[in-house]
């Protein structure tokens, strides 16, 4: 570890996000308030007012504009930051696609919340899921410390010359946005040092006055195909890069998170539970108590969702007797949850084992200890070759 030791401070998830963003020295920030993200905007504005954040802050009139602003600033060469949630994320959908298509390395925090249709001012990952095919990198974190660390790492991922893609750092609204926890805020000099390697890379293409160079132009036929192909190849490179940066971060700051996925007691496990976000913390506790009862169960915490960590997951899940996947969102048109559906696509690599889908934690309902306990028990039964239910909406069953 090279970083200075710092005294822990108590901070909400949103406060932590704003602090981390400030430490990365963004040059242009544009963000529109929405529950449960608002505190991020307010905190950044306060930093600017106090003179500790030297960024152009645009008090923008909507999320669609916020994304256009940071996208264009990024194309001009700026380091940028924005934050949103739910209605805001989908209101910028056209520009999410544009930003990814432009290969603009925008760093965005998305505080996970349910989406329009039902006026749900509550937690859920539906917003992130609804934008999974936008060409962005999507990563999910579990606690306030990981929010800070991942935002810092996000710049090393997005702005890397071999990647040049926007990244969305997701954390659970309510559960983390308002949760005050003790966190270690890295020293500014250490963040600067950690981000310094970016400066040694070749300069990425940018829009310069006086230079005949367009952005978003010439997208016909092969021009389009080539851009798409390169985009997909860059996304593929993200996977190893996330692991590499996580390792480097660990060596520098003494904290690391497993990169694309975190495997918890998976090596000797017969069955594995897959979860993400704040629910992973609860799951770890339940895994420990089930292990104490003699059940060989492990946890995979899914961190990287786009690109999908196919290879790492296959490695972690191969040879397991049954798998349970907890989704905090739904996949319209599929019975199974979105993460479960994608894990099922690994069948040819992990074998035809039972994969049980659980929908839980929608609209602020807790993914609690009894729920996860039940998931583990049912997956253990399925592992013995007994019949099982493919999809379970845990709250609906509890209601009955």
């Amino acid at each position, binding site marked *: 570890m090279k970083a200075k030791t710092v005294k822990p401070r108590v901070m909400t998830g949103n406060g932590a996000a704003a602090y981390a963003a400030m430490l990365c020295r963004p040059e242009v920030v544009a963000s529109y308030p929405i529950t449960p993200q608002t505190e991020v905007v307010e905190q950044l504005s306060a930093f600017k007012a106090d003179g500790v954040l030297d*960024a152009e802050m645009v008090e923008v009139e909507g999320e669609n504009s916020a994304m256009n602003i940071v996208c264009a600033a990024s194309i001009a060469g700026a380091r940028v930051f924005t934050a949103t949630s739910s209605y805001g994320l989908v209101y910028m959908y056209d520009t999410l696609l544009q930003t990814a298509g432009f290969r603009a390395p925008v760093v965005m925090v998305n505080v996970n919340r349910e989406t329009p249709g039902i006026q749900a001012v509550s937690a859920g990952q539906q917003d992130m899921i609804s934008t999974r095919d936008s060409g962005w990198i999507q990563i999910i974190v579990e606690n306030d410390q990981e929010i800070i660390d991942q935002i810092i790492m996000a710049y090393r991922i997005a702005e890397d010359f071999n990647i040049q893609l926007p990244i969305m750092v997701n954390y659970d609204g309510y559960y983390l946005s308002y949760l005050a926890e003790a966190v270690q805020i890295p020293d500014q000099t250490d963040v600067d040092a950690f981000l310094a390697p970016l400066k040694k890379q070749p300069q990425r293409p940018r829009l310069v*006055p006086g230079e005949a160079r*367009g952005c978003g132009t010439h997208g016909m036929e092969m021009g389009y195909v080539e851009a798409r192909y390169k985009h997909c190849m860059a996304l593929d490179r993200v996977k190893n890069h996330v692991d590499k940066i996580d390792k480097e971060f660990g060596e520098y700051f003494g904290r690391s998170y497993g990169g694309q996925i975190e495997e918890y007691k998976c090596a000797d496990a017969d069955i594995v539970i897959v979860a993400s976000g704040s629910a992973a913390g609860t799951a770890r506790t339940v895994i420990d108590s089930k292990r104490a009862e003699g059940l060989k169960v492990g946890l995979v915490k899914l961190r990287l969702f786009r690109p999908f960590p196919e290879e790492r997951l296959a490695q972690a899940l191969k040879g397991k007797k049954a798998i349970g996947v907890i989704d905090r969102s739904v996949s319209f048109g599929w019975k199974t949850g979105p993460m479960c559906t994608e894990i099922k696509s690994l069948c040819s690599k992990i074998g035809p084992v039972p994969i049980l889908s659980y929908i839980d934690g929608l609209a602020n309902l807790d993914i609690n200890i009894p729920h996860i306990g039940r998931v583990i028990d049912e997956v253990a039964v399925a592992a013995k070759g007994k019949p099982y239910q493919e999809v379970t909406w845990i709250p609906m069953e509890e209601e009955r």
Partner: protein
Amino acid sequence: MVEKATKKKNRVFDYFCTEEKFSGGVAWCAGCPLELTARFIPKVLGDKMVFVGTPSCSAPVLHGQNLGSWHKLPYLACVMTGVGSSATGLTRYYQKAGIDATVVCFNGDGCSSDIGFQVLSGAAERNEKIIYITYDNEGYMNTGNQRSSSTQKGALTTTTPVGKIGKGKPTISKNLTMLMLMHRPRYMATATLSHLEDFAKKLQKAKEMVKEGFVYLHVFSPCPVGWRIDSNLSIEVCRTAVRTNYFPLWEAYDGKPRITVEVAAPKPITDFTKLMRKFSHLKENDIAAFQAEVDRRFALLKTLCDAAKAEEKTTVQS
């Protein structure tokens, strides 16, 4: 006599001295004022210009969809909802990084008055250092002549057809220049190709004033194809629009308007409508209503100009 003629020629000629930014063979329709407008703007605004544009009739050329002909401008092609905001992102960064740039938005009336209106309004309210230019062809022309909120009442478009029941567009147009005036931009003006000297001066003022804040220019740009105008008449249509007070030429610093080209004896609106076939179905009473609308709008402008003048006087006196 000779001296006077040379002098006059030189004034306009000056603006044409800088390099031509567009190639020949560009994909605009024959006789479309949009082409001359687009070619003219960089000549005055200069080399540090960055163009921001979006899907519209300007796009086939500006986005470079035709590989055989293009332009040499730094250009950002963004979504229709993102013009004023993308320009904000660019100008903020250029300012922060100390990069000399003139950020210019260039799009149709459909974008400015409809889908991009919120964004235009937002950028104006924040007083972003942007020159925002709307070329007004009074409809969605790139998609084939549909109505926009800038389309005049009675006009024939493919979404306001004339038929047994249909009488063209049923509602009056959105008065976008007035709406922009109420934002009190640092500088704003109307312009059109028939009055090139006036246009050039306004572009020069725009270039100066954008250093202080938001600048809005509204350029009248008839669409020969959609309006059904003979392609040799487009500049004549521009001139007639000014001479009928249909499209008065004016400017405003900080929301104080002033007419730049006074029309001593305005012509009747029929001089304008007879040049195109999009109004040919209008009956006498429709024309009378059209004339009344033109007069009403001009009277409003005049009132505001007079008020601005009066305000100026009192400030000087006090």
